[in-house]
Every structure is written in C-alpha cells, then in structure tokens.
C-alpha cells in the first residue's frame, strides 16, 4: 500500500494560482470554497518588502485533529494516508473545521447548486453549454472509493456537509496525479508515494531542506514545504471574501 504525500517547493512557486483553478475544475468546488488556496504574503515595510506565496492544500495529517474529533467517523484516515470525508455520513456539526489549525475545511452552507459560478439551468447559458454535462454531474465524483467503499470524492453534492481537499482521490486511484500537481507549470508541487525512495516527492525532500506548517502542533502533516519559509511578520496581501 503506497503512503501518499506532497511536497511544495516555495522557491519554485510563482503564485500563478493555476493549482487553485485546476482544483476548482476537477472537483467542482462552490463559490468561496478553495480546497487549494495560494496565500500571497508580504513582509517588511516599503521599500524593503518581500513577497512570498504559500499554496495550502489539506495537509492530510497523520495525527489529524479533525479525524480525532469527528463524532461519527465521517472524517477518516485511509490506509494510503489520505484524510477523507464521507459526505454520506457527515452530520454537519463542523467540529472538524473548529479543530483543524490549517483552516482547510469548507462547509456547504447553502445548496451547492445555488452557489455555482454560473446557472446551468438558465436558457441563455444553455445555448452556450450546448447540452454539455454540468460539472457537478461528473460521474467519477459520485462513485465510491477505497476498500471502505465510501462516498468521498469531489465537492458539491449536498448542503449541510463538510468538504475539503481529497488529494483528488478519484484521480489518484486511477494512477493519475492530483489536478493541482498535474497543472503546476513550475513543478513546485510533487505528489507520490513517500515510502518509495525514488518517488518525486521523496527525491525532492532529499535534495532540499523543508519544513511543515505549524510543526509545533504535532499534527504530522503529509505535505512538506521545501525552501525558505515566510517570515513571522508575513501578512496576507488580499483579503479573501469569507462573508459570502
């Protein structure tokens, strides 16, 4: 059984945010839900400022705080290291979101069909889409995955459940890379089996010093950041809309 992990080379990241777009297209996340989010940070005072980028997917922790607090086992750790969310079982208590120190969870506060970027039922838009399958109807997102045979892939299924990055389980199980990794133009993101010493992330970790986010919390993330970390005074440049 492989143990999946990811490396993110901060020196290579250009902050283009293609990974965010790829994630949105692959997993069909709703407005305001970003399973992969690239923080754009700045430090220092003008004119001595430094800009840095921090792509942040779910860290798929080995000692995952969200898994420990889930009252019904909807959030669980798979054998291959992926932390998955069963949207068939989730009761919507949002305890995982409170427990997660990385803020990677997003809750379906309203019917996901109502928070699409466009209204697929609008006749004017249907002229343009010409009978194409709406992204939420992507059949691979509705399949059940893993030996547990549970509904864990993709976003946008029902309101009132918690969702987050799945490491694109629907792609990984078909031996494909997660959408964000596949899209990254600078190979800043690497994904693979961390138990295999020749896999892309294992090689990347050997070549470069790395760190993990909030290491002092002992969550043991499966995502390793390579290169120089952002400074303690780093602040977010833009303020993402969390209101709507």
């Amino acid at each position, binding site marked *: 059984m492989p143990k999946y992990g990811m490396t993110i080379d901060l020196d290579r990241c250009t902050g283009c945010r293609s990974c965010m777009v790829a994630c949105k297209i692959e997993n069909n996340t709703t407005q305001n839900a970003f399973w992969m989010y690239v923080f754009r940070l700045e430090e220092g005072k003008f004119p001595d400022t430094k800009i840095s980028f921090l792509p942040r997917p779910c860290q798929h922790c080995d000692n995952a705080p969200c898994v420990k607090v889930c009252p*019904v086992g909807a959030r669980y750790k798979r054998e291959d290291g992926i932390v998955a969310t069963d949207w068939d079982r*989730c*009761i919507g208590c*949002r305890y995982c979101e409170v427990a997660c120190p990385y803020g990677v969870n997003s809750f379906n506060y309203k*019917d996901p069909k109502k928070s699409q970027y466009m209204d697929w039922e609008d006749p004017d838009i249907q002229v343009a889409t010409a009978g194409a399958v709406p992204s939420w109807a992507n059949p691979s997102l509705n399949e059940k995955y893993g030996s547990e045979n549970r509904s864990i892939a993709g976003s946008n299924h029902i309101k009132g459940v918690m969702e987050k990055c799945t490491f694109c389980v629907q792609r990984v199980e078909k031996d494909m890379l997660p959408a964000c990794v596949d899209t990254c133009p600078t190979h800043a993101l690497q994904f693979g089996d961390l138990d295999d010493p020749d896999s892309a992330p294992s090689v990347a970790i050997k070549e470069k010093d790395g760190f993990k986010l909030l290491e002092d919390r002992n969550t043991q993330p499966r995502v390793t950041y390579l290169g120089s970390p952002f400074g303690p005074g780093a602040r977010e440049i833009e303020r993402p809309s969390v209101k709507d």
Partner: protein
Amino acid sequence: MTYSTESLERATVEAMQRFSKRYIISFIVLSAFVVAGIVAYINQLQNGLYETGMRDRITWGLYIVMFVFFIGASMGGTFVSAALRLADMGWRAPISRGAEYITVSALFTASLFIFADMGHPERAINILLFGRWESPLVWDVYGLNTYIAGSMVYLYLAVLPDLALVRDRVGHQLDPIRRLFVIMFSASWTGHPKQVKALDTSLKVMTVVIVPVAVMMHTVTSWIFGMTLREPWDSPMFGIYFVVGAVYSGVGLIVVFMYVMRRMNHMEAFLTERHFLNMGKLLAGAGGVMIFFQISDLVTAGFKLKGDSAFNLYQLADGAMAPIFWTYIWVGLMIPLALMLLPWTRTIWGVLIASVLANVGMMLERYFIVIGGLRLPLNPYHAPSYMPTLTELTIVLGLCSLFILILMIMMKLAPAISVQEMIETGEIEAVQHDARRAASTDGPEGAVA
C-alpha cells in the same frame, strides 16, 4: 398568622390550580415566540445554515454559545439541590424544587440548540450508529443523556410524595389530563414508613450519583473546546473554569426563578429574604472564584504574551471582543459581587439584580470564549468577523421561550415548593421564625445560615 404544614400544603396546591391572567398572557406570548422560532428553523432547514451569520473560519456561532450557556444554567439546579442536600443545609428546602425544574428544562433546551446548529439534524442517529469514542462530542452526547436521565429520576424521586399529596387533596378537582398525570406518577404512594424509607435511601443514592455526573457534564462540555489546538481554549484549567461558571450562572437563574415564582404564587411566607440572601452568598462565592480564575488566566498569559495568546488578549483588551469582555468583567462579575458585599444592597432586590447581571455576564463570557477562540487566525490571514442574523436570533429567542414555557408547565404539574422537604428539614418552623422576627423588628434583618 402562623404558617403550619397545613397552610403550606394549601398554598402550594392552590397555586397549582390557579391560572392567573398574567400566567395565561405570558404563556400565549412565549408560545408565539416558540412558533416564530420554529418558522425560522424550517427556513434554515430549507436554505441551509447560509441563513445564519456563520461562515467558514467562524463556524460556530450563537447556537453553540447558547448551548454552553444552558448547560451551565443547568448546573445551579443540581448544585443547589443535591450538594446542599449532601451538606444537610435546611434552607435549601423551598428552593430545591425550582432548582431541579431548571436543571431538566435547561438540559432539554441545550440539546435542542445542538440540533439547531447541525447541518444535517436528521443524521443525528449516526452518533449512535457510528459514534467514535475518541470524539469529545460523543462524550458530550452520552454525558448529556446521562445527565438528563439522572436529573429526571432525581426530580421524580423528590416530587413523588408531593404528587401523592396533590392526588389526595384535590385530585378529583383537577382537569382530566392533570388528574391522569398525578394519579399515574404518584404511583401508589401512601406515606407508609416502608415507602418513606425506600424513597429516602434512593434519594440519598441519587444525590451522591448526580453531583459527579453534573461536574462531569460541565467538564466534558469544556473539553469540546479544550481538546482542540486553539490557544485560548488549550488550557487544563478550562474544565474547572466551566464548572464554577456554571454554578455562578445556575445559582443566578434559580434566584430569578424563585423571585418570579414567589410573586406569581404568593409564596412570600415560605420563601423569605433569608433564602435569597443565602443564595446571594453562593452567588458571591462563585463570582469571587470566577474573578480569581479570570485574574490567574489573564496574568499568567498576559505576562508572557506569547504568540496566539497575545492575539487573544489584545482582542479582549481593546480589539473586536473588548466591549463584550469589559461588560462581562464589570457588569457580569464586579457589580454582582459589590452588590452582595455592600450591606445596604443585601436585599431581595439586590440579590435579584446581581443574579440577572451574573447571567448576562456569563452569556457574554460564553460568547467571547466561543467566537474569540474561533477568530484566532492560525494561518497568516486576517481575523474573521461574525454577526448573528435575524434567523439565528429568532431561533435563540424561540428556544429561550421554550425554556420558560417548560418551567411554567412544570409549575402547574406539581407543587412548586417541596412540601415534603420543608417538613423533613424543619424549614417550616424556620420560616415561621423569620416571620415572627420580621414582625418584631418591623423589617427583615440579615441572613441566618
């Protein structure tokens, strides 16, 4: 006028039968609020939690604040009734019935707040089907159910002889529903010495059982927060802090209930100033411990000002939570304590005002604990904000009204003062003494505990 057992029995039973205009009007108004809450809840079910002010990052809001508050409010009942019974304090006798009512009603209301907060309330059964013992939420669910069951058994044991009293005195005059209730639940109580002994033993056992269960419940509720990696919650003191806070607001709520019940049912003779002042002492004691905890928490964290706790202290001192925090410190803790310390405010009115302020203060405290903890940005992003919406406020109003409605209904099902306990503890003579002294000095004096 003398207050014999006979007059107490007559007064309590009469109070059960009388439906004053004020009672009926408040019943209708509160029911209207409950209906409004139900309408808002149906709307929330249809449109999702989008109707609330909660969003990602601040994902728990007013519902959880009120859940914690009502769990806390339930503590006072058990504490006053069971702990004082263990300590053999006679003056608890006219208070304990109302206190037990508050426990049951507050726990019931608290559990409904959880349902209001859930994204999928119809899946609540999953907690029983797939419950994981690692989750503090599962501890809380089982703890809450144990606590509700225990308090109901405890209340029932205490109320049993009084139900039999109602059955024997006015059973035939009651309306059919209440007559059936009284006959069914008074079982075959006749006051036979064997029955009295059995009941006494069971009550003693339940008293010993219910106190640790109550302490466990408040600790587990604090652990829902304490088990996460968020700095202001990440404290071993959190459990005991919640327990004392619960005693503080619970005692306050009982005083408010005592005052209203005394006015509504004309129980001035049996609930004297002495009872209020003793409750005031408990309130001041719990308030003093709260101030002590607050100071030790603020000083140890504020002296070092490390990382996340610095953010929390700044938001409390002069940030987004400052108005709530300082209102809590001054109005919720300092003024009630001052009211109880100053001799000229040590009156029924003083205790009542201190109790109301204590409850307002504790509600604010729950608010800045829950919302303040969630505001803490653990990643380099800006601290989010939260404002409850009309839907949330309506549901909260509806559930608070339900809490009062349950109390009002329970008050008409059984005597609101435990006749049995009044006789057993000799408190019936003590209130006669109070009355004589009030008559001789032309004005009540300080408390005799």
